[in-house]
């Protein structure tokens, strides 16, 4: 497949870097494989070193790994040896994080401790992680990102919603660069909650994905490669409505379809290729949409030329509150 030599308009949003923290998955292209990654890979958070990690929750550590790689890939941080040194103005660099279960462990472990030992048994170091924005907070602190900092905890669609809000922040002129992170950890409280209290042996994602977005004009100016362009997005009550809203009538064929997981209603998408991350990685919850965007970016950067259609949440037909869809296109 040859991508057409076509520049995207300067104010279009493009992806300029991606990162993953996922056991057994090194390169983003590996997300496109139809089979699960090997279960015996190294824990990605083993790559982190430094002080203060002891008090960071699992979600924060995973997010820090993916974030660091995405920022480096986009050329927003200087090479190793000068950590935290941004190549762009700090107040113009924002963060949008997506997670549903990120800080559930801190909350549940704390009430268990209080019941057993009263409040005196708790550690004051756990306080910041009771607030659901703890991941975005630590990532901003680590890299000195002073711009708008959002955490979306928005159910199954949360990851695609995060990409959308990154675009909104840039379009509104609040920031020039946004680091988008999707992360979910696995631990007993998450397993309890995600399985509705049954604790059954469901497969759940333990990992993070990150990407950097900015305008095509900004990427050109910095000499950063535009890996993919971000197209239309919609959040609707049903899966069909969300897909129809982003594709419009007479839309081009779908090159890569990122399936939402769960039971998808009958459709006539007929994609050239399908990527079902829920089947290969387990339930990805708030990380799904960001993982899909990273997978779609890898597919486009690898030569895919037709549209990538990412869909998350099966909508009211599937028992969720909504469904979201996002198109990614070749940047050039």
């Amino acid at each position, binding site marked *: 497949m040859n991508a057409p030599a076509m520049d995207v308009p300067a104010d279009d949003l493009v992806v300029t870097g991606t990162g993953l923290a996922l056991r057994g998955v090194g390169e983003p292209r590996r997300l496109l494989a139809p089979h699960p990654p090997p279960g015996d890979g190294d824990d990605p958070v083993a790559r982190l070193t430094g002080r203060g990690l002891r008090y960071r929750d699992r979600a924060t550590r995973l997010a820090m790994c993916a974030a660091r790689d995405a920022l480096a890939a986009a050329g927003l941080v200087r090479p190793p040896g000068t950590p935290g040194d941004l190549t762009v103005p700090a107040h113009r660099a924002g963060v949008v994080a997506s997670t549903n279960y990120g800080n559930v462990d801190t909350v549940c472990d*704390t009430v268990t401790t209080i019941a057993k030992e009263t409040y005196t048994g708790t550690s004051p170091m756990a306080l*910041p992680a009771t607030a659901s*924005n703890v991941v975005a907070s630590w990532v901003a602190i680590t890299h000195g990102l002073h711009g*708008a900092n959002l955490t979306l905890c928005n*159910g199954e669609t949360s990851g695609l919603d995060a990409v959308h809000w990154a675009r909104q922040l840039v379009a509104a002129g609040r920031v020039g660069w946004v680091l988008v992170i999707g992360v979910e950890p696995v631990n007993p409280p998450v397993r309890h909650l995600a399985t509705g209290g049954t604790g059954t042996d469901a497969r759940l994602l333990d990992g993070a994905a990150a990407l950097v977005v900015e305008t095509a004009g900004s990427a050109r100016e910095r000499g950063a490669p535009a890996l993919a362009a971000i197209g239309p997005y919609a959040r609707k009550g049903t899966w069909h409505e969300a897909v129809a809203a982003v594709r419009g009538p007479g839309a081009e064929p779908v090159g890569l379809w990122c399936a939402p997981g769960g039971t998808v209603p009958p459709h006539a998408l007929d994609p050239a290729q399908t990527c079902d991350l829920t089947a290969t990685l387990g339930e990805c919850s708030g990380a799904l949409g960001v993982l899909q965007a990273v997978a779609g970016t890898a597919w486009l950067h690898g030569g895919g030329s037709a549209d990538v259609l990412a869909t998350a949440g099966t909508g009211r037909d599937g028992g969720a*509150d909504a469904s979201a869809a996002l198109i990614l296109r070749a940047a050039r």
Partner: protein
Amino acid sequence: MGWIITGMGAVAATGGDVAGFFGALCAGRSAHAPLRGFDPTRYRARNAYEIDDRPASGDVPLRASRWLERAVAAALRDAGMGERLGDVPVLVGTTLRELRSVELSWRDGVPFDPADLHFGAVLGRRFGATRTYTVANACAASLYALGLGTDLLELGECDTVVVAGVDTITESTYGLLDRCYPEAPDRIRPFDRDRRGMLQGEGAAAVVLRRAADGPGPAGRRHATVRGVAVNCDAAHPSAPDAGSIGAAIREAHERSGVRPADIDLVMLHGTGTPLNDEAEAGALAEVFGTAAGRPHMTAVKSMTGHTAGASGLHSLVAGVEAMRTGTVPPTVHLDDPIDEVAGFRLVRGAAAHTTGLSVAQVDSFGFGGLNAVAIVERAVRS
């Protein structure tokens, strides 16, 4: 440029609607009470600002979702809108989502569907809303959401947006705050020398926003105009605030709104009564306002509502809008011995202040993770 607030709703421990909520604040009536929701033998702290609507049989899930529902329904009614929202965006700022329900599920086995962890579920069921976003931006969340809402309107993504905030007290935060303070706070005493920290409150608030150019919509109500909202992040410490970064947010809010410090008539302070917040907030205000720092009336309603976290920014905003409309500024109660940093400020203490000519209010809202959001709101001009 600006965005009309055409509907408002509020639920708090001080009152279940805007009139009750604001009336209590003006009367100096605090919701401060002995802790009722949790087993008091587990804590050193004794008090909170709860909405004690639990059944006699014990705590139940989804209390936050129900307050949110009530606040949004009230705001829609006020704006003359029906309850079928469809594609009208609803942005909900929160610190703790439905994590109290998660605690009940994990420790006590109370059934809870994880789909209800974010507020899109309840907003879908009650209002048929599909463009719903739960913004978990700590205690700056509802003003952060207000900023995002104005962006949606400005970019032409919608004509009307609902912005809300909601929070309930969780045992995990109540216990960890208790663990962190050297002495348990007996109550919130913003900017007082004897302040020992914050105690949590509960509730929700909602506003309906439209572009000023489009007019106020069905009910024709103009409560106030949002002139601008600035947001940023300290990127410095997970819980301690940074005065420089707060100052930058205040300055940006003024720039976005086309106002100078001398134009501000009222500052609705974040004022949590923690040693660090009050010092940083006072320092930032003194630095940005300079010689104008003594001009605006200032008050901190958390002294009566408790710290309502993700809802607190909008609680302050609703109170500020009502203060401008009525000319009555609620007092900061239990501020008996002000810290040096606020020496030149015109803090309303003891009883409500009655005044005329309040036209422009600044609303402060800061949260964990160094999140800062500051809104500038202008009084509606009678048409």
